[in-house]
């Protein structure tokens, strides 16, 4: 589809490990339409975070990134340094998991918020300041003037994450990459921050790629969800249908093994074994060793994503489950 904002096609990421390479992301294909929110859900080692970083070419030094990443028709992997910076400056912005580590501790909140406006957009300092205070108000921080003078260590995690969101809004990007934006926060704060992010994103028509381990959170805030495991996407569906009819055994497993506040199971149905990273997976379907549905056909080759009743699923036995 030509009107997609972001297209990932067979994206692969390897990082050097001694003399070897370790695959973290393996053949990930995904699209995001303008204004759309897509959730990328997976456990540790699934490669979800690295996939998001690949979009901005923020992979670790020495990493090998291949495949096709296209943003608004521009191939991101071919961009020169200047164009790449322009892309990062105005078009795509990232929100990180741990705002305390991801905001410079020795600079004030005001510095952090106005830096991009002054440097990139040539906004006069005074105006940038006024705009930053308005942005702080937008994210629910009323006493902006005081906060602008403070330093990160004087703010709580929830406030800092809102500052991070404000800094993203400042450049009005087309796409926000949100990497576990609420994982480090308390539940009530998570709800608040997620709501702010969701509201403001919709108001401004920004698309979002939400990276999270929390399927329920993704379902509540995203239009579509992609489930990742061992560096691959196993399933893509609209959020609504995914929670009702998950197609991949892994997705089903994730949903039923999570305890709920509404019901108590005598024993939780579990997925045996532990999640693996792409480079740890053997031949065949990466999930096969943990899968209750697995048969001999699952051992031959990685199953590709295929369409099944409006969903995309990478399982040869999807119809049977």
């Amino acid at each position, binding site marked *: 589809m030509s009107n997609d904002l972001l297209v990932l096609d067979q994206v692969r990421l390897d990082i050097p490990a001694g003399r070897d390479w370790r695959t973290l992301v393996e053949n990930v294909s995904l699209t995001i339409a303008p204004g759309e929110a897509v959730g990328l859900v997976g456990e540790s080692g699934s490669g979800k975070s690295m996939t998001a970083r690949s979009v901005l070419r923020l992979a670790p030094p020495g990493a090998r990134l291949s495949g096709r990443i296209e943003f608004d028709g521009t191939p991101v992997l071919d961009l020169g340094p200047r164009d790449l910076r322009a892309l990062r400056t105005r078009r795509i912005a990232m929100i990180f998991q741990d705002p305390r580590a991801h905001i410079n501790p020795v600079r004030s909140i005001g510095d952090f918020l106005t830096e991009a406006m002054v440097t990139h957009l040539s906004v006069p300092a005074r105006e940038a300041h006024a705009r930053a205070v308005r942005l702080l108000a937008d994210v*629910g921080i*009323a006493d902006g003037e005081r906060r602008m003078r403070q330093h990160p260590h004087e703010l*709580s995690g929830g406030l800092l994450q809102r500052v991070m969101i404000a800094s993203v809004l400042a450049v009005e990007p087309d796409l926000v990459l949100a990497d576990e934006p609420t994982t480090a926060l308390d539940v*009530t704060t998570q709800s*608040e921050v*997620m709501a702010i992010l969701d509201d403001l994103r919709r108001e401004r028509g920004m698309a979002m790629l939400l990276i999270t381990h929390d399927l329920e959170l993704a379902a509540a805030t995203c239009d579509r969800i992609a489930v990742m495991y061992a560096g691959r996407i196993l399933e893509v569906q609209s959020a609504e249908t995914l*929670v009702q009819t998950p197609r991949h055994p892994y997705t089903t*497993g994730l949903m039923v093994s999570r305890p709920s506040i509404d019901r108590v199971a005598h024993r939780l149905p579990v997925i045996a074994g532990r*999640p693996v990273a792409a480079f740890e997976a053997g031949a065949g379907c990466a999930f096969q060793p943990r899968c209750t549905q697995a048969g001999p056909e699952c051992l031959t080759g990685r199953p590709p994503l295929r369409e099944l009743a409006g969903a995309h699923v990478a399982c040869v036995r999807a119809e049977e489950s």
Partner: protein
Amino acid sequence: MTEILVRADGLQKVFGKDMVAVDDVSFTVARGQSLAVVGESGSGKTTVARMLLGLETPTGGTISVCGRVRQGRAGSAERRRRAREIQIVFQDPYSSLDPLQHIGDVIETGLALHFPLTATERRTRALELLEAVGLTERHAVMLPRQLSGGQRQRVAIARAIAVEPKVLVLDEAVAALDVSIQAQILNLLADIRERTGISYVFISHDLAVVNQISDTAIVMAAGRVVERGPTAELLRTPQEDYTKALLAAVPRPGWKPRRRTPSPSGSPAGTP
């Protein structure tokens, strides 16, 4: 009437001059009961756990375990006796094991402290315990860094139950684990309780996990108990606003994140 194993009465902990971490907290744990202590960061729930274990000294109130009041610094014999009453599993599976100690050794050290066993008996018992938590003989000779987070947490559980305590405190013991591993550990904990009749004090911020593992719960905020009751009731019909807010914030089918009206300070309680 079941036997009360832990009785905390008016617990208080003040750090430094005026940092009140825990204020007037009381609860009991009966034999075989699973009590959840629910709260967000800064609620004082971990301090409560540490006081139960004697890792912090309360500045006020009393704790009695198995009918004996715990007071003052204990000598080594007294500490060994207390060890048989109550044990703990910590949140972080990476730092709760000595990186240089083999897994089998971790269990055997605990056994050697408390039971008059020969070396062979000790080894056999250690293997039994590892098997009870889903590990094998193969793991006994490994170092912690060769194990995954979930496996390490199993070792920590085996270490705790090795000394056969009556109460096990689990301080956010599944919070750091992946969803699929979390379920495995929760099932393991349920099995152990069913088999041994051990009591749990389950410290957690996660209401869904609490719902699964506990039969009674207390909700803490800013060092105080806000609400208490049977877990199912507490989650179905919360009485206090804080509990309601906590419950409303849990993502679940049909849930939407909600903005509280922007407060003038713009910050939740407890921030400067």
